[in-house]
């Protein structure tokens, strides 16, 4: 059952082959068995979870089920869920009980899905390895010595280890797609503005976007149907008609023009990852797609631009943590200023502090034009590159990450090396475009992800393109052998 698609799980519930309570308990049991070694979850509350499952069973019995009713979904601990501890991976919010639901959480509640628990993540989503979490690192289910990627590392490990039916993530610079690549599953970052950011703890507001993390493109489509929607409470939420994201799953790829950006296959890409991507592209040719050579000439600037814009926005967003209304407050201080300074010094970890300081610096008097304004100008150049590219092709493909999962500790002390993990994913965040990663094979026993980028609001086609590949390959069905790994431990 654990490797079943969301559709199959829904059918099992509909046919009363299993109840939601039983299905949920199966996943809770797996979590109990494997989470002590993987550390994918920060907060579990079996009573709350099973109460939701009971409600779902009643709804199914009454004939009011929707596609995800009764299905256990793991939620990244960045989404406020009323009554649940919501930490964002930080000591600052270690005791924060959310007083309200994020839009994403309320959408899953309305759909009747079951909240399985809150997953581990890099602190305030700042990281690419999950090592900045106050609650400890997460193990990659394919190799316990390696990281799962980040920042949605807990959701990633939970999906890969089949500790949940599917999970949510957020992606500011690659935080859904890079872990999807490193852990071998399907993850989608939608067009900016498609999923409301209400109640999603802010990192860099002009880039943050929530999306699904699941086994297959079909599963991601069902998840996105629930997650996407207009919400008054997010000023950047886009007011568009509701879509059905599974509508193009069975599209033909005949004549589909796939653009391969030269810059994504240049220096810096691991040769074994490149080989896996080439084989995947060859598979797409067999499915009838045409390959087009394209260029994204400013793509090498995406990391510098990102490390101005994201920290600048973060320094502003994280100024709210002052130890007054909620969050950590130092126990000893002399006056108000001292209370702010000590509470923030104690509550934030090293990487979060670094980004706040970078952001504060680039926004400080005299530097705004040289850094923030300049970065926003180059951001437009990067977005324009994509506009030009999409005149020549329908879909863009390339590697998701430059390498497979690296060892824990390998890059933890070198921020710049860590930042390069997102070299292929950041540009779409800057442009506001949708991007996804699908499993495309293995290199030395570790998963490799193929990145699929589409034009604005082209999620349904991207999911169709991914689904076609998943009909002729079985990489997305592969599961790690957790028992063998636990024995090595």
């Amino acid at each position: 059952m654990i490797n079943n698609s969301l559709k199959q799980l829904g059918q099992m519930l509909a046919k009363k082959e299993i109840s939601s309570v039983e299905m949920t308990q199966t996943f809770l049991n797996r979590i109990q068995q494997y989470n002590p070694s993987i550390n994918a979850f920060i907060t579990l509350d079996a009573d709350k979870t099973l109460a939701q499952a009971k409600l779902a069973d009643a709804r199914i019995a009454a004939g009011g089920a929707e596609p995800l009713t009764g299905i256990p979904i793991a939620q990244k601990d960045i989404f406020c869920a009323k009554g649940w501890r919501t930490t964002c991976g930080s000591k600052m919010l270690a005791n924060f009980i959310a007083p309200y639901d994020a839009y994403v959480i309320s959408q899953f509640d309305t759909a009747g899905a079951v909240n399985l628990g809150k997953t581990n993540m890099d602190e305030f989503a700042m990281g690419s390895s999950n090592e900045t979490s106050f609650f400890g690192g997460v193990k990659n289910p394919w190799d316990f010595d390696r990281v799962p990627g980040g920042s949605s590392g807990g959701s990633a490990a939970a999906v890969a280890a089949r500790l949940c039916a599917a999970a949510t993530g957020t992606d500011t610079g690659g935080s859904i797609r890079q872990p999807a690549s490193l852990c071998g599953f399907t993850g989608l970052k939608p067009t900016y503005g498609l999923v409301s950011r209400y109640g999603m703890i802010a990192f860099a507001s002009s880039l943050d976007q929530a999306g699904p993390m699941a086994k297959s493109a079909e599963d991601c489509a069902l998840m996105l149907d629930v997650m996407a929607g207009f919400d008054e409470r997010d000023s950047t939420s886009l007011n568009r008609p509701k879509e059905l994201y599974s509508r193009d799953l069975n599209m033909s790829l005949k004549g589909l023009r796939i653009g391969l950006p030269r810059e994504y296959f240049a220096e810096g890409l691991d040769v074994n990852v490149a080989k896996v991507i080439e084989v995947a592209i060859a598979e797409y040719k067999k499915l009838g797609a045409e390959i087009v050579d394209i260029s994204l000439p400013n793509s090498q600037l995406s990391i510098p631009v990102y490390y101005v814009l994201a920290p600048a926005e973060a320094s502003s967003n994280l100024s709210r943590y002052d130890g007054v209304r909620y969050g950590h407050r130092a126990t000893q201080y002399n006056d108000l200023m001292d209370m702010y300074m000590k509470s923030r010094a104690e509550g934030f970890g090293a990487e979060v502090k670094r980004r706040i300081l970078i952001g504060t610096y680039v926004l400080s008097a005299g530097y705004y034009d040289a850094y923030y304004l300049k970065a926003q100008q180059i951001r437009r150049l990067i977005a324009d590159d994509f506009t030009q590219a999409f005149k020549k092709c329908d879909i863009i493909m390339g590697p998701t990450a430059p390498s497979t999962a690296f060892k824990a500790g390998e890059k933890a002390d070198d921020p710049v090396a860590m930042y390069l993990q997102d070299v292929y994913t950041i540009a779409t965040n800057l442009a506001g475009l949708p991007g996804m990663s699908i499993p495309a094979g293995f290199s030395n026993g570790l998963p490799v992800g193929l990145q699929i980028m589409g034009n604005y609001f082209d999620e349904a086609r991207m999911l169709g393109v991914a689904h076609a590949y998943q009909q002729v390959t079985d990489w997305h069905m592969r599961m790690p052998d957790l028992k063998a790994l636990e024995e090595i431990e």
Partner: protein
Amino acid sequence: MALNITDIKRIAHLARIEINEAEAQATLSKLSGILGLIEQMQAVDTTGITPMSHSQDVVQRLREDVITETNQRELLQSIAPAVAGGLYLVPKVIE
């Protein structure tokens, strides 16, 4: 632009984060590396390019000037570090 230890302390103060001498030193080398990365931007001629803040060029929505929020003071203050009589408590700022 090369940073020095005084810059780090000034930025940390602006960001309201207490930092000791050892932390300031460690931060200096890491931040210098990151700023080195950022400096690559300066080689690009961006004359006349309109800065981009949102991909869809949307405008701020307006709404009717009516009350939409309800009073949830007790709920919201239940998670505060220190409250009394419906007020948030902080160290004395006026003598």
